[in-house]
C-alpha cells in the first residue's frame, strides 16, 4: 500500500519544485490574507492621487483637529489637513522605504555572502568578521546613527536601513551557498571546466533564491517598522510630505484633544507589517526544503 502511494505521489509530483512551492503558497490561507493585505497597501500607494479624497498637504484653518466624519473619515490634523489623505499618501514613503531598503540590503549582502560561501578562506573570514561587527550594534541604533550622520531625509533613511539590514542577507546567502556547494551538480559544473565566476553566477546564485526570497519578504516588514521608527524620530521623510511615523510623532502632542490622529497611521503601519509577516511565514512554509 505504502509503495503504491509513494509511487503514485512520485508520478503526480512530476512538476518542478518551484511549481509545488507556488501551489503550496497559494493554498496557505494566512499567506493569501497577507498577500491581499500587502497588495491592498501597494495599490493604495500607487493610486494615491486617484483615490485620495483631499490633498495631503493643503491646510484648512477652519478645519483644525476635526473628529472623524463623513467629509473627513479619519478626521483632520493640527493644521486642518485631511488625515485619510495623509494616511493614503503616507503609504508611498513607507512602502518605498520597505522595498528600496531591502533591495539595497540584498545588493550588498547577497554578492558578499555568495563570495564568502564560495571562496571560503580569508575572504570568508574577513567578510564574516565585518558582519559580526555590524550585527554587534543593535539594528535600530545603527540605523539611527547612520541616518543621523547622513542627514534627515527619506533617501538617507533608506540607505541607513538597507546598510543595516545587509549583514542578515550576507549570512543567509553565505549559509545557503555553502549548502548548495555540497551538491553534485556544482561538482559537475566545475568538472566540465566552467570558470569559478560562472559556477557562482549561473549555478550557485539561482539556488540561493528560495531562502533569500523568504528573508526579503520578512525584511520588508522589519524595514517598514524601521522606516516608521526613523520618521517618528524625525529622520525620515520631511514635512509637509506625509509619512506614518512622523504623523504619529506629531499626534503625540494632541493625545487628549485629537486621539484619532494617533490611531490611524499606527493602524496602517500595523496592517502593512502584518501583511508582509504573514506572507513571509507562508513563503517559508511553502519553500521549506524539508517539505519539498
Amino acid at each position, binding site marked *: 500500500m505504502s509503495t503504491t502511494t509513494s509511487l503514485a505521489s512520485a508520478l503526480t509530483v512530476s512538476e518542478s519544485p518551484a511549481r509545488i512551492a507556488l501551489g503550496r503558497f497559494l493554498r496557505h490561507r494566512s499567506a493569501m490574507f497577507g498577500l491581499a493585505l500587502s497588495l491592498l497597501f501597494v495599490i493604495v500607494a500607487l493610486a494615491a492621487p486617484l483615490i485620495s479624497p483631499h490633498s495631503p498637504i493643503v491646510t484648512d484653518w477652519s478645519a483644525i483637529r476635526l473628529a472623524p466624519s463623513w467629509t473627513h473619515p479619519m478626521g483632520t490634523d493640527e493644521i486642518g489637513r485631511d488625515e485619510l489623505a495623509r494616511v493614503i499618501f503616507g503609504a508611498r514613503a513607507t512602502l518605498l522605504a520597505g522595498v528600496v531598503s531591502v533591495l539595497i540590503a540584498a545588493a550588498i549582502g547577497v554578492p558578499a555572502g555568495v563570495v564568502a560561501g564560495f571562496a571560503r578562506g580569508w575572504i570568508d573570514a574577513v567578510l564574516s568578521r565585518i558582519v559580526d561587527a555590524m550585527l554587534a550594534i543593535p539594528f535600530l541604533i545603527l540605523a539611527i546613527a547612520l541616518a543621523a*550622520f547622513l542627514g534627515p531625509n527619506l533617501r538617507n533613511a533608506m540607505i541607513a536601513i538597507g546598510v543595516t539590514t545587509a549583514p542578515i542577507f550576507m549570512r543567509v546567502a553565505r549559509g545557503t551557498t555553502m549548502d548548495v556547494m555540497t551538491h553534485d551538480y556544482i561538482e559537475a559544473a566545475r568538472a566540465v571546466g566552467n570558470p569559478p565566476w560562472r559556477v557562482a553566477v549561473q549555478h550557485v546564485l539561482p539556488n540561493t533564491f528560495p531562502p533569500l526570497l523568504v528573508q526579503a519578504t520578512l525584511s520588508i516588514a522589519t524595514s517598514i517598522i524601521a522606516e516608521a*521608527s526613523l520618521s517618528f524620530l524625525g529622520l525620515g521623510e520631511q514635512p509637509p510630505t506625509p509619512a506614518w511615523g512622523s504623523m504619529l510623532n506629531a499626534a503625540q502632542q494632541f493625545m487628549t484633544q485629537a486621539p484619532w490622529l494617533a490611531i490611524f497611521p*499606527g493602524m496602517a503601519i500595523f496592517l502593512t507589517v502584518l501583511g508582509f509577516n504573514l506572507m513571509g511565514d507562508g513563503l517559508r512554509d511553502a519553500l521549506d526544503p524539508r517539505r519539498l
Partner: protein
Amino acid sequence: MHGFLGSRLAQIIPTLLLVSVIVFGLQSLMPGDPAMVIAGESAGDTAVVAQIRHQLMLDKPVPVQYLHWLDNILHGNLGYSWRLQEPVLQLVEQKLPVTAQLSVMAFFFAVVIGVPMGVISAVKRNSAWDWLANAVGLFGLSIPTFWLGIVLILLVSVQLGWLPPSGYVPLTRNWVQSLATTIMPAFVLGNAIAAILMRHTRSAMLVALSQDYVRTARAKGLREYVVIVRHALRNALIPVVTLGGLQLGALLSGAVLTEQVFSVPGFGKMVVDAVYNRDYPVIQGVVLVTALLYVLLNLITDLLYLAINPRLRGA
C-alpha cells in the same frame, strides 16, 4: 570551559575593533566640515574653524585621527557632548541604570508572557489555544513598539487614568512610584520580545515533546503537568535561553523608541535628544557602548548556556 572562554574572547576582540572602525567612520558620513558644524555661528571665522580643526585633529590624516580616537576610548574618554559640554561617559553612566531597570522589567514581561504561551501552544497544538497564541505572537511582531506605547497611554493614562503617561522616578527614591512609571514602557518593550520567545519556545517544546524521554515519563504514569514542566520544558528552555540572549539587542533598540514615547530619561532618550541636537559625539558614544554591552551580554548568555547544558561543559 577555559578553552571556550578563550576562543570566545579571541572572537570578541577583532569584532570590537571593527565596531570601533564603524563608529569612527560614522563621522566621515557627515555632510560638510565637522569643524564648521561645531563652530556654529562662528563658522565664518576661519581662525576659529582652524583652531577647532587642530583641537579635534581634523588636520591630521584619517588613520592618525582614528588611532588618537581609539587611544582616548581605551582610556575611558568617549569625547564631549557638543551641546551639554559634559563627558559622554558621564552621561552614559547617568542614563544607563534607568534603561537597565526598564530592560530587566521588559525581559521579565517577555518571559512571563512568551514562555507559557509557547508551552500552551505546543501542548495544545492545532487547537484554538495554539491559534490564539500564534495570533498574539504575530500581533507582537507586527505592531510598532512606539504605536503600542501611544495606544496604551491613550487607554490606560488618558481614558482610565490608572498610570502616569510619562516620566520616571528612580527605584531608590520611591519604588512604588518607580514601578508605576516604568510598568507600561516595560510591557511595551517586552511585548515584541515575548512574541519571539513564544515562537522559539513553541518550536523547542514541539521537538522536546516528541522525544523518547517524554514518552518514557508518560509511560511511567507521571502526571501530564510533571511531564510537560519537569521533563519537556526543562530541556526546551536550553535553546530558548540562548535565543533570549540574542534578543538583548532588540531590547536596547526598542528602548530608544519606548523611552521617547514615555519620556523616560534613559539611554534611548539620550540618543534621540542627541539626534535632535546633532550632538554627534554622544551618538558615537552610545553606539559604541551599546555594541560593547551587547557583546558582553551575549558572552554572559553563552556562559549561562554552558552552565545549564552539561553536555557542553567538557568543551
